[in-house]
């Protein structure tokens, strides 16, 4: 019931093994491989929780039903997911995780929201069972010396480095920026990350605006932006808040040379809602179905998205892919370890360097995602499509800067 705490930041890794999937005729004889976890299907984090949940289900059912199971050390396994609703309540999540541990579950997926992930991770850590999660980015998770907890994206304070690098490379060089962030754990940390990265890149900060976690009106902030206009306006907040800001900016004709929204424009629904006005908007894209990564199970991101659509009508979001990549990462680590012993799998995860349709998966010694590989890319809406403009090697289009004013887009 509290403000939605949508963490952004999912990273993914992708390994470039274009190995074709092998169907097995022995699906029936496969042994069960239980992977447990809780997801917030109700409460504050429900919206993203559902995406995470669907991602887990998509990956598991593809591996089981389409590929007929996965082969690990010569044995055929079916993935058996045990997911429960933790209602965005950390106390409830801890009992649910404990119940699964008691039932003999050895591998865990993460919930969504650092305040849930950390207490549950503490339990699995103590039991020496791995947890691969895509929902907790707070630095605290990765600074406690946990050995069995792996996150699919860099810790929160390291996530804005790529964007700052992009800003620096633009011509003519932008001089100033302002940042707006909402007051939830992730956005606030990300806002801090923006300030660190952009100040380091030599940009001058004009203003920092902090919004409440649940935004209803930004008229006053926009009035201030109009009177002290920066070259770049960076908004780090949830999708729906980004939409609200963009809509009000259009409506009040508040223009900046570049509007960078941490989250929002990567969603098709967001671009549809804004229509022509979405042109030129930039965002972090941790993933979309156009990413060029290859995947040894699905083939590539596009095929993953196609399969997802056969199972769900809900629009695909990057959390879906991040969640699916958690399961792929598990399977590849098990295959690398040639074992389903938790300790062996943990060691393989720590050494992971796999390509998946999500991203290239590699963890730091602390367990969070590699800042370069899992730090995300930058996209820009160009002619209605989301093109990747950073980093250089994944680039599908050149960045447009400065972007046209709203009235020119109409």
């Amino acid at each position: 019931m509290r403000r939605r705490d949508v963490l952004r930041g999912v990273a993914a890794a992708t390994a470039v093994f274009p190995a074709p999937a092998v169907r097995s005729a022995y699906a029936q004889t496969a042994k069960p491989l239980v992977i447990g976890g809780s997801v917030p299907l109700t409460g504050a984090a429900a919206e993203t929780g559902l995406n995470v949940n669907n991602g887990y289900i998509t990956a598991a059912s593809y591996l089981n039903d389409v590929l007929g199971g996965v082969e690990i050390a010569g044995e055929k396994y079916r993935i058996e997911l045990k997911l429960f609703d933790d209602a965005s309540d950390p106390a409830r999540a801890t009992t649910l995780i404990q119940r699964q541990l008691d039932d003999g579950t050895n591998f865990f997926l993460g919930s969504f929201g650092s305040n849930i992930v950390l207490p549950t991770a503490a339990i699995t850590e103590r039991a020496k069972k791995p947890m691969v999660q895509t929902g907790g980015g707070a630095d605290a998770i990765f600074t406690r010396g946990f050995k069995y907890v792996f996150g699919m994206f860099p810790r929160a304070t390291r996530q804005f480095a790529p964007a700052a690098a992009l800003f620096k490379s633009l011509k003519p060089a932008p001089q100033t920026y302002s940042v707006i962030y909402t007051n939830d754990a992730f956005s606030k940390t990300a806002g801090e990350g923006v300030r660190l990265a952009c100040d380091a890149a030599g940009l001058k900060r004009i203003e920092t605006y902090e919004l409440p976690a649940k935004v209803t009106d930004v008229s006053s902030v926009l009035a201030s932006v109009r009177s002290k206009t920066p070259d770049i306006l960076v908004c780090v907040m949830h999708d729906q808040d980004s939409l609200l800001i963009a809509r009000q900016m259009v409506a009040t004709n508040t223009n900046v040379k570049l509007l960078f929204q941490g989250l929002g424009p990567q969603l098709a629904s967001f671009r549809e809602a804004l229509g022509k006005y979405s042109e030129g908007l930039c965002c972090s894209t941790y993933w979309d179905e156009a990413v060029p990564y290859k995947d040894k199970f699905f083939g590539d991101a596009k095929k993953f998205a196609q399969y997802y659509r056969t199972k769900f009508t809900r629009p695909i979001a990057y959390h879906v892919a991040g969640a699916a990549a958690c399961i792929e990462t598990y399977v590849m680590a098990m295959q690398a370890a040639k074992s389903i012993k938790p300790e062996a799998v943990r060691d393989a995860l720590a050494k992971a360097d796999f390509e998946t349709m999500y991203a290239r998966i590699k963890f730091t010694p602390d367990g969070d995602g590699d800042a370069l590989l899992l730090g995300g890319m930058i996209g820009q809406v160009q002619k209605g499509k989301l093109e990747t403009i950073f980093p250089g090697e994944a680039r599908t289009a050149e960045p447009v800067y400065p972007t046209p004013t709203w009235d020119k887009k109409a």
Partner: protein
Amino acid sequence: MSLVVQTLADGLVLGGIYALAAVGFSLIFGVLHVINLSHGILVLIGAYLALVTSQALGVDPLLTIPAVMAVLFGAGYAYQRLLIQRAVDRSPLGSMLLTFGVALMLQNIMIWVFSPDMKSITPSYAFASFSVAGITFDAVRVSALAASLVLLLCLALLLKFSPLGRVIRATAQQTLAAQLCGVNVKHVYALTFAVSAAFAGAAGIVIGVILPFSPADEALWTMNAFVVVVLGGVGSPAGALLGGLLLGIVNTLTAQYVGPSFPNVTMFLLLVLLLLVRPNGLLGNAFSASR
């Protein structure tokens, strides 16, 4: 200077919408002495109904207002007769908790039906704006405000001049006397609830046009309504309007001059302070006191 004026103007626009969103809550509180914690859910139902019908029929969301109000009128009547009436004579806490239980159930049902996602209604004029004397207004918000004011006026006229309005006011002031005069109090309660639900639904549409919404927002709109009522006083459209406008202005002023993350703090501080200083609202209590 112009920043102050712009802030005030933004506040008034927002406030008009808050007022509409709160007026039903206020009416129920004034007449039935029930704190309807499912008010926010009724608001959201309006928004979702408008989303579904405006998409299905391809009409402007604001045009769905009469149909949505009619549906919620019926639902509100049944809700009061079947559930709330049974708890209304017990403790005030009981009826409040009952509405809370209903809110939880409906929220869960909404999550099943509409998913927990943010939805938004995007009318054709979503991005238009105009300026008057250097103050920028965006068209959606202004049309939402206009719709709110018209609806509030309708309710005020209904309460003041229609036979139904007279009976409602009489029942609120002197329940026993009204009963002795042959008023079917249960029926009047249910009608009051139905009217409130209808206006909550209309408010939902107006809100849906300017803001994205999701099932988890219900608590926000209930709390907003509560603050508006505490600010403006119980039971009258005029009180709701005053409270709504005040809340809107306080919100935008705080956002501008204290910090954008502080409107909620000031809103709740205001709530607590006002309950302490003037439990009956700034306008006083339009109807009788509630224990």
